[in-house]
C-alpha cells in the first residue's frame, strides 16, 4: 500500500465515522446545547 492510499483510507474511515456520529448527534439535539454554550463563550 502506498502512503497516499493509506492516508486516503484513514481519511475516508474518519470521515464516515464522523458522519454517522453527526447524524446521531443531530438526533440527540446536541447542536442545541453546544450552541448555547458557544453563545455563552462569546461573553
Amino acid at each position, binding site marked *: 500500500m502506498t502512503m497516499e492510499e493509506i492516508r486516503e483510507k484513514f481519511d475516508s474511515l474518519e470521515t464516515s465515522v464522523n458522519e*454517522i456520529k453527526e447524524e446521531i*448527534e443531530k438526533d440527540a*439535539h446536541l447542536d*442545541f*446545547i453546544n450552541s448555547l454554550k458557544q453563545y455563552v463563550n462569546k*461573553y
Partner: protein
Amino acid sequence: MEENEVQTNETVETTSTTSERSQVGQQFDQIQDDINTIKDEKEKSMDNVLDTAKDKVKEAEDKVLEDFLATLDPKVDSYDDLTEEQKEEYEKYKEAHLPAMIDEVYANAKNKVFEVSKERLEALNGKEKEAKEFEGTLAGELESRRNELAGLDPEKDKERIAELESEIAEIEEIQGSFDEKIYGTINKAKDYQKVINNNAIESLSETFKPYPQINVKEDPDLQKINKEIGQKDGQEKTGDEEEPSKDGKDEENKDEQEKTEEEKAKDEKQGQAKGGQIDPAVLANAVKAAQAAGTQAAAPAAEEVEEVEQEAPSLSSMLGIDSNNALNFDSSWALLANFTSKDINDFQRLQMLNDPECKKYIMNAMKIAGAEKNPFKTSKYRGIRDQVLELAKGPMMEMALRQYGIDNPDDISKSFDKLKAKYVKERRAIADDDEKAIAELDEKYYTMYNVIDFQLDSNQLKTIRTRFKDFVGKFSNTEKRKMLSEKIDAKMFKPAEPEAPSQETEEPEVEQRETRSWEGKNRTEEEITQMDVTEAEKENAQKDNKEVEITKAQLNELGDEDLKGDKKKDEDDLIL
C-alpha cells in the same frame, strides 16, 4: 449577410436557452435530492418515530370512535352528539376494541425505535470492524517497511532510508490516532445513541401513559435496547485482553446507577473539564436528570394541578441542581427546551435571546420537545416557571465562569472571591511598566465581571457589590478608594444595558489604569499580604505604614468614616 447574422444569433440564443434549461434542470434535480435527503433524515430520526407513535395512537382512538358511530342507527356524527347512554356504550366498545389497536401501535413504535437504533449501531460496528482490519493492514505495512529498512545499506541507500523512516513515522502516527479519531468517535456516537434511546423510552412512556396495559419502562424488550449496544461493543472486540474493558464498561454503567450524587457531580466536573464539547457521560447524566425532571413536570394533567403545585418546592431536584453542585446545568437547558413562547419571552429577562441564533435553537428545541406538553403553560404554573428561570440563572453563570477557569464555583460569592484572587495573582506577575499586558489583563477581567454581572439579578448584584465594596474599602488611600469604589459602581457592576459599551469607550485608558492600580498607603500588614500586586508596592506600602504608624483599628475607623460619605450614593446605586 444579414440573413447569416440572424441565423447565427438564433443559434446562439437556442444554445444559450438549452444551456440555461440544463442549468435549471440541474438545480431542480439538486433541490429535489436535497429535499429527499432531508426527508430521509427526518424519517430516520428517532423524533419522527416518536411523533408517528403519537399520531398513530390518536388515529387508533379516532378509528374506534368512527367504528362505533357507524354502528349507530340513526346515524350520529360526533361524540358530542351521543346520548349519555350511547356514551356509556361507547366506553364499553372502546374498552373492547382499543387495547388491541394500541398494542399494535406500541409494538410498531417499539420496533421502529429498535430499527433506528440498530441501523446506526450496525453502521458504527461496521466501521469499527473496518477500522480493526485497517489497523491490521497498517501493522503489515509497517512491518514490511521496517524489514526493508533493516536490509538497506546506511551508506548507499540514504535516500530510501530517509523515505522509509518518514513513512514509518507517519504510519505510526496514524496508528496512534485510531483511539481518538476512530474508536473515540464511535464510542461517543454509541453513547449519544444510548441517550437517544433513553429519551425514546421516556417519550413512549408518556405517549402510552393513558393505556394501563402498556408499561413502557418495565418492558423487557425496551430494557434490552441499550444492552444491545454494550453487547455489540463486546462482539466487535477481539482478543481476551479486551474483554475486561467491556466488562469494566458494563460494570461502570451498572455502578453509575449506584453512585452518590456527589460522585456524579465529580464525574460531571471531570467531563466538563475535557473541553468545549459535551462529554457523552455528562450528557447522559444531564439528560437523565432532565428526563426525571421532564417526567415529573410533564406528567400532571390539568385536573392534577393542585396536587403538583404542592410538589413545587422540589423543583431544584427536578432540575438536577442543588446548591452544592451547580454543574448539572445541561439538565436545566434540557428543561428550558420545554418552555412555551411565553416562557421564552420571560427568558428574555436573562438577555439570552438577543442573539437570533440562540432564539432559533431554543424555538427549535421547544418544537422538537413538543411544547404542548409543557406543564408551565397554565397560569397556575407561572410561579413554578419563575422559579425555574431563577434556578436556571445560576447554572448559566457557572457555565460562564467555567470558561474563565473557575472550575467548581460553589456559589456566586466564592466564585467572585476566586476571580479577585486570580486577578491579584496574575497582576502580580506583570511588571508595572508593561502597560499592554496590564491593559489585556484588565480587559479579560472586565469581561469576566461583565459575565457575572450579566447573569445576576438585583439581589445577587447587591451582595456582590457589597462584598467588592468591602474589598475596595480596605484601601487606605481615601481618594483612590473612593475613586475605585465609584468606578466599580459605574463600570463593573452596572447591569448590561445599551449605554454600558459607550461608557466604556468614552473612558480613556489612563482612567482604567487607575481602577487597576492597587497602590496605596497606610495599609496594615494583613491587608498588604492580601492585596498587594508587586513586591515593590508591598515594600512601599510597608514603608508608608511605618511613617504614618496607623493602627489597623484606626484604619478601619477611617475606612468606615470615608465610606459613610458614599453610603447614600451606594444605596441609591443598589436600587436597580
